[in-house]
């Protein structure tokens, strides 16, 4: 590759609300800049994982380098860094942004600004990025580009009158976007001769090369053989290979210099040595100080994950280990449940992250999992003055030892059309929301601000929001610390035995309601057995709800006609199979799906 003047480099990302067309625009840019022929062009090049493509979301950040021959006759190097759109991955967004000099903001010409649009724009502005607005989907019948342009100017305060009006899907006006990138996004700075200072914005694990570190060079240069050091972890390595990103492949090159985006490998065995956000420098000639940006990722949501088949415990451990190599945000540690056996307590950035990990375990590692209800991290202030972080309800101390408890709170922004304001306010009220204010975006839409307990939104808040606004509300949140709350542990007793995996922590005021619903749900889920089974919800020694699964009275196969026993055998085998999918708790068999039923309490 020819040497590129720094002035011809553009490092940027695309930000958008989900479904506004971010990945499609990325595809068009890659296609138009001629990195790929049409034949090589697979739908949505940047979304590598099957799961991403299916869900239409971007989970991990990815990057690609393309060359664009602009109208001024010059060739420009584009480094497009893809960012996840979902709030669960805010931290990943943030570090990707740190590697860019500008951002293309995609807004749907029909839908206008949404909650995620705002959240991402603010993040970009926080990183001092120049934001280039683009109006997408202009060929939709419901498109109102001018209204959206005005909205961008009014709400965000970005100049948008000459924003490209495009259809990424149908390839309309893509050139305008490319020209806008050349004109409006600044070239990077930095001195190629200065000591190396590079930001790690992602990494992947490759079983042959070890960790592949994605980085943006701020100062200096990096080349094969150079001894480098990670400034936060202190680990040092000799660089084995440097290169840049083709579409879906790594292309080695001689060196990377200040302003460029690329990767290096250094026989790094452990992803934890290369924390995202850390600064890489030259070992023998270190830069003065690390780049800002390194922050340890803290999981927000925890749940227990158990193999459906107890014998698969080692497989689950191996799978989690492998996933963690590519996903430093995933945390896990072994735990044991009386009901579910050996498993792991896993920490996630949010519920979507949890679901994605769960799906990857099931899909990529063929594991059948039982997942317990997700829990946030509660702070338990004990009477002896200590404070414990509680991630597993089973570990909650005896109430007499608890002085008080705190739960995590988020600041939520909900964008909604005015007709649904009432319904959404009701919802937030039910979820113990604390109203913070409201702003009208334009005549028909408003931005509601609430403080909400995180545990009220981790289950199904998003679904409830969508259903109460007929899909029109959008939602974003950020952590806002802890708040003292009256919380209790709700235990479930099946046949008088406490089932640890079903315990959960709940706001005292809704404990009765939750307990009752939980018992009803379990009554549906637990099949009749040879004896009557009481299902009870309890707070401490106090029983607050009860249902009964009646004893099975009859299960007889009458006939075995003409000596044909095959049907009989099949029936018994089916019965035996069914039993295998049950968990034995005391003398009661509980189907695995019952452990997840707590998740669905509110949907009915």
């Amino acid at each position, binding site marked *: 590759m020819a040497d590129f003047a720094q002035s011809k480099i553009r490092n940027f990302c695309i930000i958008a609300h989900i479904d506004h067309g971010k990945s499609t625009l990325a595809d068009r840019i890659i296609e138009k800049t001629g990195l790929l022929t049409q034949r090589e062009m697979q739908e949505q090049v940047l979304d590598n994982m099957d799961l991403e493509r299916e869900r239409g979301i971007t989970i991990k950040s990815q990057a690609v380098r393309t060359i664009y021959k602009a109208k001024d006759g010059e060739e420009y190097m584009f480094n497009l860094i893809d960012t996840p759109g979902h709030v669960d991955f805010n931290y990943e967004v943030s570090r990707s942004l740190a590697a860019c000099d500008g951002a293309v903001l995609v807004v749907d010409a029909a839908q206008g600004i949404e909650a995620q649009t705002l959240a991402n724009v603010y993040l970009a502005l926080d990183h001092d990025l120049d934001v280039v607005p683009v109006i997408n989907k202009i060929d939709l019948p419901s498109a109102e580009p001018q209204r959206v342009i005005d909205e961008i100017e009014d709400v965000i305060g970005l100049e948008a009158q000459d924003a490209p009006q495009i259809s990424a899907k149908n390839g309309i006006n893509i050139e305008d976007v490319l020209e806008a990138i050349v004109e409006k996004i600044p070239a990077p700075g930095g001195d190629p001769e200065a000591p190396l200072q590079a930001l790690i914005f992602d990494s992947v694990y490759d079983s042959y090369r070890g960790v592949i570190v994605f980085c943006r060079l701020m100062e200096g240069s990096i080349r094969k053989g150079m001894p480098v050091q990670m400034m936060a972890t202190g680990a040092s390595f000799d660089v084995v290979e440097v290169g840049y990103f083709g579409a879906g492949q790594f292309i080695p090159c001689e060196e990377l210099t200040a302003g460029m985006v690329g990767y290096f490998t250094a026989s790094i065995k452990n992803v934890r040595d290369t924390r995202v956000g850390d600064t890489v420098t030259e070992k023998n000639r270190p830069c003065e100080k690390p780049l800002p940006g390194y922050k340890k990722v803290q999981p927000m949501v925890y749940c227990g994950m158990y193999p459906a088949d107890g014998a698969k415990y080692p497989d689950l451990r191996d799978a989690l280990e492998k996933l963690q190599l590519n996903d430093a945000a995933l945390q896990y540690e072994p735990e044991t449940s009386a009901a579910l056996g050996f498993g792991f307590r896993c920490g996630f950035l949010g519920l979507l992250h949890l679901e994605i990990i769960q799906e990857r375990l099931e899909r990529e590692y063929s594991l059948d999992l039982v997942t317990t209800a997700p829990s946030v991290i509660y702070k338990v202030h004990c009477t002896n003055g200590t404070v414990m972080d509680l991630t597993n309800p089973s570990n909650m101390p005896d109430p007499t030892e608890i002085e008080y408890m705190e739960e995590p709170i988020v600041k939520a922004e909900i964008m909604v059309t005015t007709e649904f304001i009432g319904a959404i306010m009701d919802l937030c009220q039910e979820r113990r929301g604390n109203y913070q204010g409201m702003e009208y975006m334009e005549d028909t839409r408003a931005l509601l601000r609430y403080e909400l307990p995180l545990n009220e939104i981790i289950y199904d808040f998003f679904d409830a929001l969508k259903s109460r606004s007929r899909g029109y509300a959008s939602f974003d949140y950020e952590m806002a610390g802890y708040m003292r709350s009256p919380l209790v542990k709700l235990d479930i007793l099946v046949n008088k035995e406490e089932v640890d995996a079903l315990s959960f922590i709940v706001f005292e005021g809704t404990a009765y309601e939750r307990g009752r619903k939980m018992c009803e749900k379990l009554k549906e889920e637990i099949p009749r057995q*040879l004896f009557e089974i009481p299902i009870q919800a309890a707070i401490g020694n106090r029983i607050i709800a009860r249902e009964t699964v009646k004893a099975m*009275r*009859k*299960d007889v196969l009458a006939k075995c006609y*003409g*000596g*044909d*026993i*095959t049907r009989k055998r099949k029936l018994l085998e089916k*019965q035996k199979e069914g039993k295998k999918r049950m968990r034995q708790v005391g003398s009661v068999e509980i189907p695995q799906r019952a452990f997840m039923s707590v998740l669905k309490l509110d949907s009915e």
Partner: protein
Amino acid sequence: MEKRDLGIYIHIPFCVKKCDYCDFPSAARTPQEMAWYMRNLMKEIRSYEALGSLYRVDTIFFGGGTPSILPPIQIMRVLMQLREEFEVAEDAEITIECNPGTLTRENLLSYRDLGINRLSLGVQSANDAELKLLERIHSWQEVPDNVRLARKLGFKNINLDVMSGLPHQSVKSYRDTLQRIVELRPEHISSYSLILEEGTPFYDRYRTGEGQKVLPGEDAEREMYYETRDFLKTHGYHRYEISNYSLEGRECRHNSRYWTGGEYLGVGLSAASYLDGKRFANTSDWISYGEEVRHAYQRYKAAPAQSRKDAMEEFMFLGLRMTCGIRTSEFCQRFGTDYYEVYGDVTERLEGQKLLTVQNGRVRLTDYGIDVSNRVLAEFLLEEGDV
């Protein structure tokens, strides 16, 4: 070499009209179709000629369908063919299933003279409204008439089938049916609860919604079941299998074979066999049946022997249907391994749950074990590698 005992089952897949609850391979057929089928049935019996030197037949069972709608001459041909290929024991139990409404004096006389010594009548209910709902072709009154006539002609072994759990049936109407049945003093009574089989009109009609509401509730259904046991007991009928009752010594020998691991050969459409440690069955497809009969014997020879695991499981889940249970010593004899080596844990657990009893070397289901027998029997299925 001494000949082994063999039961023969002959499937007659014809009926006057298919009942809406029935999922057996049976249908109304034209006389030509019946004649075509019977010719093939003969061919099939002939193909087993080589077995004649190994087995002596001591039970024969004509089942269906409704075998009694066949002209007696067809029954005669089958029996003659069987006697040609096999030695049939002097005291063989020979049963034919009949429907009240198809039995005539001529039929009964012919059966008697052909050596048929046991009649099995599908009575189902003594309540005409219930019979109508089942779309049976007979009314109750024909039953005592048929039984009286059969007695007069010398039949000393009669079974009457009844059903419980019918739509709109009450405990009272069921008790009434039992009462009328025992008044006829049959030697044997089978009582089955109605099972809604997928693919039958009854399934669609009563499985869900309004239809479901006219079926007896669980409590009523159980009461009928206990009623059967207790009521029949006071009238001298003992339960020897989950659904079968008889006077002392009048247990059905042919059906008992199925539960006790005895050998039997099934001929006719979809008929199942257990012979020489092999389980195999005929096609249930009418057309292919005609093509397969000629090779019936070769197919039997080529069939794979049952695995030891399957054999053990069956010994248990079939044997436990008999109220006398299984003998642990017989298990040992058959499989050359101690019963408790294989099933010790299961037995102990189920005994603890009062689902099984072990007494005098026999393992039996308790009354409650019978109620939930599917649960109990499923416990006797083994894992690969257990044996």
